[in-house]
């Protein structure tokens, strides 16, 4: 395997909240054009992992390499400049700014006016509703529209890789499907490389090429998305597909995970 197309490579990353170790030595890589998903339950450390990558938190140990350059511990604005953008959990839009202003802030690190205008149109073409609501204060948008705005704003940095944190959070299944449709279109049509963190394993595995399963700050499984989706453990614990009853007509309630 060549290393030329590895956009993001993480080695033995460790991160702490005070004395509590949230990331316990995570290694993973994301290749050009891929959607890589990190699955895991609440508190597994997924969000912390993204925050450590994007520079909002500093790691204690380990390296984060963006296209071969180490970026761990750098200031977030430097990291955005290098082409890594983080679309945070819970949208985090600027509520009192208009939709158009929110989108323009996504391009804060850029100064090429013509290109920016082109990208604004691109964002509006993927999210036509945002164009309709252009002049409206972003805080008045619905949850789904705010998520679209957050993704659109992230695109404006023209990232080499985009980190998406729980884009389905608080959205109806229908809206979730719509958002993921757009995510996968962006990946295919605009060749945006993405690292996607999700609790909703079914939709995440649906769009991803490769997946990691995270538990208690560690990666416990890594495989192609399709292989993961058919693995017994992922089905049982993340997709909610339960095993058939056994011969005696009983279910084993205390299922053991194979990685324990």
């Amino acid at each position, binding site marked *: 395997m060549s290393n030329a197309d590895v956009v993001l490579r993480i080695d033995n990353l460790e991160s702490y909240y005070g004395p509590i170790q949230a990331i316990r030595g995570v290694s993973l890589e994301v290749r050009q054009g891929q959607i890589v998903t990190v699955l895991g339950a609440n508190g597994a450390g997924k969000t912390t992992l993204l925050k450590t990558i994007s520079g909002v938190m500093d790691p204690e140990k380990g390296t984060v390499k963006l296209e071969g350059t180490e970026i761990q511990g750098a*200031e*977030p*604005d430097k990291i955005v400049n290098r082409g890594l*953008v*983080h679309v945070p959990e819970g949208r985090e839009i*600027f509520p009192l*700014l208009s939709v158009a202003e929110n989108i323009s*802030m996504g391009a*804060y*690190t850029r100064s090429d006016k013509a290109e920016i205008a082109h990208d604004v149109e691109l964002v509006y073409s993927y999210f036509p509703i945002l164009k309709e609501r252009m002049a409206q204060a972003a805080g008045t948008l619905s949850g789904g529209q705010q998520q679209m705005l957050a993704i659109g704003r992230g695109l404006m940095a023209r990232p080499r890789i985009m980190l998406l944190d729980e884009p389905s959070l608080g959205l109806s299944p229908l809206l979730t499907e719509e958002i993921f449709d757009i995510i996968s279109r962006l990946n295919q049509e605009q060749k945006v490389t993405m690292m996607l963190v999700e609790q909703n394993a079914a939709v995440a595995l649906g769009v991803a090429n490769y997946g990691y399963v995270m538990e208690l700050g560690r990666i416990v499984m890594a495989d192609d998305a399709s292989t993961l989706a058919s693995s017994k453990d992922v089905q049982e614990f993340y997709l909610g597909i339960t095993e058939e009853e056994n011969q005696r007509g009983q279910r084993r309630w205390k299922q053991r995970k194979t990685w324990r």
Partner: protein
Amino acid sequence: MDFIQLVISGLANGCVYGLIALGFVLIYKATEAVNFAQGDFMMIGAFVCLGFTNSDFLGLNFWLSIVLAMGVMAILGYLFDWGILRHMSGQSQTSIVILTIAVGFILRFLAGSIWSHEPVSLETPFAGEYVRAGGLVLGVDEILIIVVTILLTFGLYLFFSRTKLGVAMQAASQNQLAAYYMGIPVKRIQSLVWALSGVVAAVAGILFASKGAIDPASGLLGIKAFAAAAIGGFGSLPGALVGGLIIGLIEPLSARYAPDGFAGIARIAPYAILIIVLIFRPGGLFSQTQKKKV
């Protein structure tokens, strides 16, 4: 006539309060800290200008001195945030508030030692001049105060709505974390907001000194401006100006029209208004609170 005269001088006072209140709100919105030294910044701004222009000191051209004073205050504001406040991040609000109060004392002492503890008047080209218009006698200083405040407000409006830096300042104040995610250098932006509030303080101070004298204790005017900011909803820039105007108007009007023996009411009127506003509209007149959608 009497009434209109009072209203105009009240508006002129109110503009000064409003500009100081604007400084409070700028800092509060950007950094969530309340700068109790804002009044003293204003006082220093006036003294710096006075130091440049008065014949006892450097004796420079008045208009040049204004620009220089604005520059000096911008640098001072920036350095204050960069050198002191940035190292206090993570400390409690209370300690930051106490720090700014202490800075206020230091500034008052410095102004006294460098310039004077006694009131000094700023030498302006228009001192004592007035215009008559239909039975009204208007001081040029009062007219200038109102005009300059309108221009500055308009300028700030354009800055915050049209420039990338201005929008980024708003963005950083509305959602600091998201601003970090967008690659906005939040810390530098905050220092620039301090610089901007230094400029506003300088303008307020020069306007204040131009219609009277300035002494180190003038900084205590900040308390009244604080009330103005709270009336306006602490967090709204137009609110701060309106709050300032309300206080500026209520003072002369209540002194003039209060029943005999109650003339002292002018001194408590601003705070009485503040209490009434806080009871009926706890968020202030222009509250900008918005719930976050999940």
